[in-house]
């Protein structure tokens, strides 16, 4: 099921009494993009060279730990309101996976790691992968995230990795 109806949204938005100009402009862009998708053109994506497609190239990436923390709150609210059965299969699978592979101790650890990787000024995808995979040395990091080699030198990478390691769950 395709959840994006931005093409219709744009034509419709003009009928509303006070649509903000910026929102209308925002909607106008995906309308042209969508034509391409409707014709069935498949975009080439490759994470090794940081090509995630138009929709995700600049999207905000989340670490597994952040996903777990975000979903923990959503989960508690849902269970309180509607009981455990209201959680869908996808939600439960993601939550179980995030709990299993969450690398950092708590909210504080995740925030510190986020700050650390943001300081390194990497692409969002690289930053999230570094935090998810918790590599030990630069060679491992560069082998698992090939695009890193273009953006950061070994020395800085090593300090970054050591810093990330220090927040890891024991």
């Amino acid at each position, binding site marked *: 099921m395709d959840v994006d*109806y931005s093409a*219709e*949204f744009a034509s419709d938005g003009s009928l509303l009494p006070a649509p903000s100009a910026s929102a209308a402009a925002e909607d106008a862009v995906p309308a042209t993009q969508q034509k391409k998708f409707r014709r069935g053109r498949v975009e080439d994506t490759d*994470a090794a060279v940081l090509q995630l497609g138009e929709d995700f190239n600049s*999207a905000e990436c989340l670490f597994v730990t*952040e996903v777990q923390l975000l979903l923990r709150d959503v989960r508690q609210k849902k269970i309180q309101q509607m009981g455990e059965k209201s959680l869908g299969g996808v939600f439960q699978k*993601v939550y179980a*996976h995030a709990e299993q592979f969450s690398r950092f101790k708590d909210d504080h650890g995740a925030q510190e790691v986020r700050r650390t990787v943001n300081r390194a000024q990497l692409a969002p995808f690289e930053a*999230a992968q570094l935090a998810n995979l918790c590599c030990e040395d630069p060679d491992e990091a560069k082998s698992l995230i090939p695009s890193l080699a273009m953006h950061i030198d070994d020395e800085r990478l090593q300090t970054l990795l050591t810093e990330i390691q220090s927040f890891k769950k024991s």
Partner: protein
Amino acid sequence: MYFLKELSHTVQLHPMYFGPRMHEYVEMRLRAEVEGSCSGRYGYVVAVLHLSKMSRGRVLPNIGLADLHARYTAVVFKPFKGEVVDGIVTTVNKMGFFADVGPLQVFVSTHLIPADLNYDPNGDQPCYTSEDQLIQKGSLIRLKIVGTRMDATEIFAIGTIKEDYLGVISQ
């Protein structure tokens, strides 16, 4: 990779819901319709975090239902070719093994398993073994996605562990 993404969706509303609690109802419907859904373009929509904008709604000619457009921020999961992920092995057979990465099922064929890991069907559960690694049901594994296939309701991926630093995660 998990993303925080702003998406939009249209909810069709029956006139019986036009009233003071309409927005609450729309939010509930939106969650029911998009959470857990999967599309080739955005991958899995895991959870709606909050609604940022909701249109005033427009009654459709002839049928009386109203269209409401909502913009919302959601956690989405979309796998990419070339991405390295951690997963849990679910089934092992002589063709290879399956691993779950959240909602995504990844298949790793024997051609993409290093040659020193041999299939061993004897024993209480089938596994791949070498001198220092053991892959069986429940093992934690680090793999690289080499291809994805989008279905209407699911995404499948092919993975490899035949590269440096991939394979069983020792903890």
